[in-house]
């Protein structure tokens, strides 16, 4: 046992960029890939991770002095920087929980299909990261005890079980609104929110005066399109924060201030453009495993009428979703400032908001009025839980050897708030284990 533990810690000590290629090569072989293919894929993942680290360190060195100045000069409270879902997924796919949670989720899916509890066959391996993240968070906070492992794997099973059922329930609406025939969306960060929006929609439907209001989202994409571009958003928000931090200082040199504004703006724009490029490499590294899993699952259930569970990305091209996603940008920014308990500075995930408003399109079939009300309620929930997630996200990033901002700033992402249901088992685990 001693020997096994020391082999494990020897590997873990080398960090995610070495550990994950080894884990993915082995996992690839287990799922039936060829050795060369599995190794190359594993190494591609490692390369993506190293690239991501470089990009996040650009962000940290850029944002740390700005955040510090904002706190010093203004008592600015939005110190948890939203660095986007991508960093969360990279961290989630880079911890020792990966092989165990991965297998637990697949087994859960197989058993649930076999027992007829779900019709969703989840081939979207990538988004297992939602429960991988919460598993890693539990293991980190509860220090990897046996009980922590029980919670980490248990919550993955329960949360994925819940999302398979939600995917089944919402499938008919996915066909009607998005035309996704034979496809369901077992994507926690997008679809768990339906637990809130469906009942909410029922309530709005009962209120006289409100129930008959029907707005459409025509023309919004053309008017607001540029706002959703990461490169523009990064430059504007980065530049604005830099300006705010400098012009509130006791002495200002306008010349250097303008230089700084442009430098910070460009750096944040670069980060928002480059993070996704790195994530593409991580995805490429996961592809052999995800393909083999699909083959493996399909062999298990020939001839059964099942829904193929996909990434909610397949719904994000719909005009309803794009429009509401754009309108959600000002909504969440205003809420971030207004909500007294919020510390999240929305940034990178502003570009991912279409994912988090799918739940506000489905129940009302694209009625923009109801969609907006539901989006406001959901954004409050997202910000609340992203705020809660900031501390553990910052420590997890540190544990994965990513360069995190120092001093006043923490990192988080709206995505982590959007998987709010997974934070309940986390709280429970913390209560029981500590």
């Amino acid at each position, binding site marked *: 046992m001693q020997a096994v533990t020391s082999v494990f810690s020897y590997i873990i000590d080398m960090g995610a960029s070495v550990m994950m290629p080894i884990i993915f090569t082995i996992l690839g072989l287990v799922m039936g890939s060829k050795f060369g293919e599995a190794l190359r894929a594993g190494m591609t993942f490692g390369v993506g991770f190293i690239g991501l680290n470089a990009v996040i360190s650009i962000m940290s060195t850029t944002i740390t002095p700005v955040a510090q100045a904002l706190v010093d000069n203004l008592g600015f409270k939005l110190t948890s920087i939203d660095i986007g879902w*991508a960093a969360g997924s990279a961290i989630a796919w880079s911890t020792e929980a990966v092989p165990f949670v991965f297998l637990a989720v697949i087994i859960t899916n197989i058993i649930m299909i076999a027992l007829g509890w779900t019709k969703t066959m989840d*081939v979207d391996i*990538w988004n297992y990261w939602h429960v991988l993240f919460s598993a890693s968070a539990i293991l980190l906070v509860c220090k990897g005890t046996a009980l922590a492992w029980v919670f980490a794997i248990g919550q993955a099973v329960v949360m994925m079980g819940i999302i398979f059922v939600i995917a089944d329930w919402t499938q008919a609406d996915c066909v009607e609104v*998005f*035309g996704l025939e*034979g*496809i369901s969306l077992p994507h926690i960060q997008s679809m768990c929110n339906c637990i809130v929006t469906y009942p909410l929609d029922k309530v709005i439907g009962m209120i006289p005066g409100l129930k008959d209001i029907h707005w459409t989202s025509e023309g919004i*994409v053309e008017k607001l*399109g540029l706002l*959703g*571009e990461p490169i523009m958003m990064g430059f504007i928000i980065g530049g604005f924060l830099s300006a705010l931090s400098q012009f509130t200082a006791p002495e200002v040199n306008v010349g250097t201030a303008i230089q700084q504004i442009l430098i910070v703006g460009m750096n944040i724009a670069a980060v928002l453009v480059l993070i*996704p490029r790195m*994530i*593409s490499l991580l*995805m*490429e590294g996961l*592809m052999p495993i*995800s393909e083999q899993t*699909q083959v493996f699952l*399909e062999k298990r259930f020939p001839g059964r009428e099942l829904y*193929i569970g*996909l*990434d*909610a*990305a*397949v*719904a*994000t*091209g*719909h*005009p309803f979703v*794009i429009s509401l996603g754009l309108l959600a940008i000002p909504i969440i920014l205003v809420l971030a400032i207004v909500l007294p308990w919020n510390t999240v500075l929305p940034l990178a995930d502003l*570009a*991912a908001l*279409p*994912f988090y408003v799918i739940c506000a399109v489905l129940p009302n079939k694209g009625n923009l009025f109801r969609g907006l009300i539901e989006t406001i309620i959901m954004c409050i929930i997202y910000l609340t839980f992203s705020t809660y997630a900031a501390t553990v996200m910052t420590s997890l990033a540190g544990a994965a050897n990513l360069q995190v901002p120092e001093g006043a700033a923490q990192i988080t992402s709206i995505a982590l708030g959007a998987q709010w249901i997974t934070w309940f088992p986390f709280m429970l685990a913390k209560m029981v284990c500590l």
Partner: protein
Amino acid sequence: MKTILVACGTAIATSTVVAKKVERLCEQNNIEVKTVQCKAADAASRANEILPDLVIGTCDLPGNFPCETLNGRAFLTGIKLKECIDELLEVLKN
């Protein structure tokens, strides 16, 4: 050299999967391709900018396109993949 624009929600996740599969497929069929990824919302404007030979989307693509478009969902689900591949190769060989 053929250019294919692949679009999905964020230009990160599903479009990477489809782009890699299309690249592999074309290699097997001796077709030289370059894939470019973009967001579904920007697909139409990008397509008019770079004038690709084909646009593949993993979701519905809003707007007007200067070339043929193909729904690439089959690359994710595996359902009717054969038909989808045939259609893809036919467009590229012309």
